[in-house]
């Protein structure tokens, strides 16, 4: 037994565990300091929490796209962050038009539905076209090839949109009904954050039941398990793969509109950071695993909303909020080192 243990401890594992333990110690110490100092009130913590949930819901929606595609193609769709960006970008023009016709104020719910549908459709189309042009011809190529294609496609789309619509930041019009706060249990909470969170959960639940119940959903799962066997069972693999790109795209498009509603703005580079974070969320939950992506997204959103104030502040780091992206990236690295299969994942045995 001792020998077995000894054999598993190499210099590398020691280094990694040291990194892990030091990180953990810093987090615990920092949190303790912050909490004891009482810098933030309970109310503020609840604000962070709700914000984290809303943010996490968006991450989860994007993460679904990564996971769907990873499931069927075993590749990371690097350009998914641009799929996410494209929907709300076009949605913006619809929204401003609606605004000019005063439609947003008179029919707020119908108009948000229109924007949402347009954005989902655009993101879906971008995802499907991307698959058709850039990925399908390379399905049997060595792994590096589609990956580089995806990176290329990602940057192409970013700057293509910049060329078409300009590089300026576009401000979404206000939906008056979503402004302001609701009081829940005596606690005022931003309406938009609650709405975004519940809408995201609703969409995810819809997707989940779609995957479980419908024939197409089952086909996607079958293709994820084994493409050849699925083909033998009479499943059209090509269209199933297209379909999972479409689903992922729709979710990302919806996530994009929520993002635009929360942050009020869209621009051509907006996909990059949420993209990496959503990928982190997908890995966190176990890539290829649909419920995992949802959980991972929520978890990351919370972590990011609370983390900087909780432990970086306690460590005496000035303006900790600048480093919130560093936290997300560090989470990604740590997860991949210590639990590459993610919280729920068991999909990739020998891959990470």
């Amino acid at each position, binding site marked *: 037994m001792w020998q077995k243990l000894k054999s598993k401890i190499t210099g590398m594992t020691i280094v990694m565990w040291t990194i892990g333990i030091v990180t953990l110690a810093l987090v615990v110490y920092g949190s303790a300091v912050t909490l004891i100092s009482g810098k933030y009130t309970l109310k503020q913590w609840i604000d962070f929490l709700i914000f984290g949930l809303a943010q996490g819901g968006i991450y989860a929606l994007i993460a679904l796209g990564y996971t769907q595609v990873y499931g069927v193609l075993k590749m*990371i769709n690097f350009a998914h962050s641009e799929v996410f960006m494209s929907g709300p970008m076009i949605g913006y023009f619809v929204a401003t038009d609606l605004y000019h016709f005063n439609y947003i104020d008179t029919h707020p719910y119908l108009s948000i539905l229109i924007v949402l549908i347009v954005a989902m459709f655009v993101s879906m189309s971008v995802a499907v076209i991307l698959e058709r042009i850039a990925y399908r011809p*390379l399905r049997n190529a060595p*792994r590096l090839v589609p990956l*580089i294609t995806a990176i290329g496609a990602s940057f192409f789309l970013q*700057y293509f949109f*910049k060329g078409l*619509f300009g590089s300026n930041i576009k401000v979404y019009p206000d939906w008056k009904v979503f402004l302001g706060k609701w009081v829940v249990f005596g606690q005022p909470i931003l309406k938009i954050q609650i709405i975004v969170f519940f809408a995201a959960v609703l969409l995810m639940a819809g997707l989940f039941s779609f995957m479980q119940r419908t024939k197409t959903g089952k086909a996607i799962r079958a293709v994820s398990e084994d493409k050849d066997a699925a083909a033998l069972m009479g499943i059209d693999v090509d269209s199933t793969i297209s379909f999972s790109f479409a689903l992922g795209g729709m979710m990302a498009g919806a996530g994009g509109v929520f993002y635009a509603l929360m942050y009020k703005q869209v621009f051509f580079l907006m996909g990059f950071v949420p993209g990496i974070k959503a990928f982190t969320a997908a890995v966190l939950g176990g890539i290829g695993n649909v419920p995992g992506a949802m959980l991972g997204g929520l978890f990351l959103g919370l972590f990011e909303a609370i983390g900087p104030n909780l432990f970086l502040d306690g460590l005496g780091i000035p303006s900790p909020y600048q480093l919130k992206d560093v936290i997300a990236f560090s989470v990604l690295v740590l997860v991949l080192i210590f639990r590459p299969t993610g919280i729920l994942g068991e999909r990739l045995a020998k891959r990470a």
Partner: protein
Amino acid sequence: MENRHFWQSEVMNFGWLAGILVVLLALVGMVVSFSQRGFISGVMSEGQLLIFLTVALIGFVAGKKMERQSVLKVALWGGIIGFVAGLSLIVLVLLTGIKPLNLRSMFLNASPQLVKVLTFGKGQGAGFLYLLLLNILSGIFGGLAAVIPGIWGSGLANSALITILIGLLTDIWKTFLPRGVAKFFFANKGFNVTGFLITFFFILAFLLFWSLYGARIKVSYGNVASRQPKKVKITWWVISLVVLLLLPRLVGSYLSEVLDLVGIYIIMGLGLNIVVGFAGLLDLGYVAFFAIGAYTMGVFTSPELGLFHLTFWETLPLSILFAVLAGVLLGIPVLGMRGDYLAIVTMGFGEIIRLLVLSDALKPILGGAQGLVGIARPTVGHIVVKNPPQFYYLILAGIFIAWYVASALKDSKLGRAWMALREDEDVAQAMGINLVSIKLLAFATGAALSGLSGAIFAAKLNSMVPHSFTILISIYVLSLIIVGGVGSLPGVVVGALALIGTPELLREFAEYRMMIYGAVLVGMMLYKPEGLWPEPARRRELHGEEGKSAVTASTAPVQMSEEA
């Protein structure tokens, strides 16, 4: 075929494709932006050229697809394609004219300038006719270039392309050529009509001449080369060395600046080529080591921070050392990761470094968002290296070192182990290769070269800001090694000249650089994965399929029975 409507037929598919492409080129702004420069002065701007080139290209592809058809039919096809493309543009122009639609509120570039460029400034009637006609001609030209057999077809296509290239680089020729000659060929921006015609027909004539006598010349050169291989080789070496050494004097200060930048990217490219090309580890955080090299140079020499007061040469080894340390540090956590995971984690790492540098937390040591100024200049003897031609030599020395390192390692057991790792990690390990050490060596060596490059970069700029170190740098370097040919050393140089040099010379390109790079990456992977200048031994490098052995196994019995 017969049952389908005409507009669903193949030629119309090409036509629609051409139409969509040219409309997108217009909407994305490239047409207008390129039109600031003439291609043939007063006749055609580069923006218009872009449209016709696209149409010709589609015509060419369509022509290739129907190679066996009669020349007349292909010409007809090309014409139809051009017609559809032209018509699409006309529709676009008409749409921009509809006031209530206000196309411009969405598409920034649907502007009056665009209309002017598309109608050749001749108003809607004559302009449309012009546009349509030239598009049709381009389509026909492309189609014919594809199907006319022998030297005439390819000669036409090639001389057109070469002429265009010469026209685009007008500014370079002007610095070389005597004023009188330059004035004869070139107008203020681009060719003049005589220059264009002479160049085109001269190149066409040359290509014809070469097709007739080229083989004979090659044979006689081959004879000389085989009789005295060493002498010929040395002659070539000496010639290229002399040219390299004289280059900054020949091209002047501005082009030296461009060469410097290209050189800095060549050093980085040679480093990343070790990591990606040799060992197959896709590292997107490569800019981090460049930043670390640069920041080491800055922090240790900048009087602004006043932490240290070392000279350039004292700091250079430190820059490399810190980059190597960072390379190993990044290497350790990602040891177990493959392919896409590695890519995204290294990308995250690059971002972490950038965010840390930007942050207020580290401002006292790294200078924060304002960056650093007063970075030391290198001195050689009594000369302070400061202007671009002087830096050229420093960078050239760096390139030689990087080239030597890469080629020495490639041709060693380490190089072979890296390639084995790239091909099949599990099998490499079963061959007794210690994956940990060779992966770390790859990261460390790549990082060292990137650090070297960063140190020179910092010293050259004399000051720097964190915004110089975005993920885009990593993507530039990756793109240039892909374009040149993964794993190929000359490929790095070709890639850097093409991708870094061109946008510097053609400022219009610079704005669309990332879009073009992205498209180039996709296009290369789809159609030419081995790159522009692959190693001779690896021309077919990336053409293999992953399930190769399985395929062979299943087809093997067939082959066998044929033999038996």
